[in-house]
């Protein structure tokens, strides 16, 4: 077998046909981005489903992970080696053993130390902003890209590679990379 090797210029004959066939790039990119985000958010859905009949140790650790050690910088009660954190872990265990629920224990610590004892901003009221802003920004960026790419009419010049042409273009690419690597050396 020997693939046809066409000079680049002659290939552009096929170009005009291909240009018309092409869908606006922006739409598809936007769609792709949205699909990717939807896919990405899957892992964060399942997190709430825990608790219940786990051993006290495990539940205590989970609660301790949600609380900030008040005298450390950025460590949770579960992770901090400080004496205060050791005591707080003790309090959590005692309360769990006396039958208090996770919510009651968390509320107890919030009352004593304020809302900033929580390791993550609560998902209600003002602090919801913390959670949604990054995703809104990401969506806005993708929407902007989609809009920008769709708006521009694509010039007809570089042809869409047909399957026949693909090996040739691949050669061009490989060669380009080598030349490029040489040039920047």
């Amino acid at each position, binding site marked *: 077998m020997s693939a046809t090797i066409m000079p680049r210029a002659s290939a552009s004959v096929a170009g005009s046909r291909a240009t018309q066939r092409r869908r606006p*790039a922006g739409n598809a990119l936007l769609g792709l981005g949205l699909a990717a985000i939807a896919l990405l*958010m899957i*892992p964060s859905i399942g997190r709430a489903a825990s608790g219940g009949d786990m051993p006290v140790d495990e539940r205590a650790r989970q609660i301790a992970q949600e609380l900030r050690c008040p005298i450390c*910088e950025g460590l949770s009660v579960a992770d901090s080696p400080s004496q205060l954190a050791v005591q707080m872990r003790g309090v959590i265990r005692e309360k769990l053993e006396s039958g208090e629920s996770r919510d009651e224990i968390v509320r107890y610590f919030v009352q004593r130390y304020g809302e900033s004892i929580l390791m*993550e*901003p609560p998902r209600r009221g003002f602090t919801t902003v*913390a959670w949604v802003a990054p995703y809104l920004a*990401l969506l806005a960026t993708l929407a902007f890209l989609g809009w920008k790419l769709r708006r521009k009419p694509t010039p007809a010049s570089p042809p869409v590679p047909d399957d026949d042409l693909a090996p040739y273009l691949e050669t061009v690419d490989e060669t380009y990379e080598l030349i490029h690597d*040489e040039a920047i*050396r």
Partner: protein
Amino acid sequence: MELTAADLGVAALIAALVAAGCSVLAGALGARSGDELLLRAARNGAFVVAGMIALAAGTLVAAFLTHDFSLAYVVEHSSRSMPVQYIIASFYSGQQGSLLYWALALSVFSAIAIRATFDRLRQMIGYVIAVAMAIEVFFLYILTFVSSPFDRMLAIPADGRGLNPLLYDQGMLIHPPMLLLGYASVGVPYAFAMGALLAGRTDADWMRATRRFALFAWAFLGAGNLLGAWWAYHVLGWGGYWGWDPVENSAIMPWLALTAYVHSVMVQQRRGMLKVWNMALIVATFCLAVQGTFIVRSGVISSVHSFAQSTIGPYFFAFLATVVIGSVAALLARLPSLRDSEQFEGIVSRESGFLLNNVLLVGIAFATYWGTIFPVLSEAVRGTKATVGPPFYRQVNGPLLLGLLLLMGIGPLLPWRKATATQLRRTFVVPLAVAGVATTVMAVLGLREVAAILALAAAVFAAATVASEYWRGIRARMRSTGEWFLPAVRHLIARARPRYGGYLVHLGIAFIAVGVVSSSFYQQSRDVTLPVGGSLTIGRYTLTYQGLTDRTVGDARSVTAQLALSEDGGPSRTVSPGRVFFQNFNDQPATRVAIETERLEDLYLVLTGWGDDGTISLVAIINPMVPLIWFGGVILLVGAFVSLWPERAPAIQRVPIASRGRAGQPLGVSPAPSAPSQPFG
């Protein structure tokens, strides 16, 4: 009057400041008029700046080594009893020394870059020098007039205060200098970008000229972050390596932006697109790097890294504002010349892969930035501080990182311009099959967390992509040149270092991802109080508490617990987690973590306390796959250096395309390379 070290250091800094100022003027004027003499003056000025700052730094090192306690900085950061390597580390353990180190690094890199490109980039070099030296002027001004390492003591004490106990660690010898080196070297591509913009030369020349510096900065920022993680893991004693602490965040953000940049420049070089975006990225990277330098050394945000408090805040803020406003103004002024010369053609293409990569990386950087400033924002808006801790970052950045990991497997397999179905089928089959097998194996082994399986499969996929790309190149070489496997590998890499080095970096990231995902999802932890003879079982390990020792050596008192560790009931050995109290720093005991690495998992033991009744409090953690993070880090750095190593490979042989045998076979792999490389096109 006798000349002291302080006098020499101050004189050198003032000389450097004056030289930098002159260089800015000469560079700007020379670039406008094209006057050769002015340009040379500017260049030589930059060399003088580097020399003078080196002299100042040398003076400070000498002052440390000779215990010259007439300098306040030496008193605050060293003492006579310190081992010599820590005395040298004292150089950058405070704000003044760090800034001096920063200024030195930038001046040396600038001098090298200016010297290398003086002739090639003549049209813009004047502006480049002016921008680089303007940055130096700021740092030198701070070092001379605001926060000098050469401030004197009124009365000379007999001994110094010594180093902060947290910093008494091997990791601390290299973590700060690496990170600061990374921060400072971002200044070089920034100066070239601005120079190109001011000169109106917005093609990819400046990128090619600074490719190495950008990669160098990337490698050092990466190394700095990894070493920071390693230090936190071994020293801080909370069982983790990354806490999304404000200082960690401000160290990872410039790295993320720079990662986006080193990818998107390929699109501009290859297809003439994303010119404005690349400029914006390098500006953002530089601003984040300056902010990182500032945050780590100013104590403006409370963190484990706040070793120094200071008054340089307003100066840094003004500098950052100037950088942002100046860069944006220059960018807007040159907007017409930054029009892209080509357009996107296909959705499924290398270009769009890079674009999505950039969106995700910048998205992660933004989310991190947002989380870092949100507490301040919350306090301003409603008067209550909110804590934004690791759970926030895990949930917001986790999915984005997963997307990035997936893309790392997909991107390198996509062809430029537009992919055809045949191409996709051919390139994706093997990596996808490997990832599929890995997923099955994980499911059989009993992994049930969907997110963990997805992430681990994505890492395997990315690694398989790297392997298949290597194999494709190696096979092509073996066929066309008749070489054996190993020589083929060597020549393949030598031929296209940036590309195959980059693939190694991807492989390193895949290893790191496996380590991070496994240890985040499958960490086990026990928190117990043990009497003498009491024992604890975690995983396949059993620990029996044997006793406590209390020893004082020099100015350090260490309390160590002895525990017998046995695995699966086998023979036991002794492990000894402890705590150390340093003289002068009694309220800040340092943790001595005991880490036992077995079969890719760490048993991590922390002594959290001891009582009068002879009991100890102990935290025992099993961290699976953490050693892979450090291993991946090494691969990543090797890859980065393969990519930027300036070795001259045999030149490409120019053969007309039509005379080659098979299509689809890479050119330039012929066995008998001819004379030196020729400029192509």
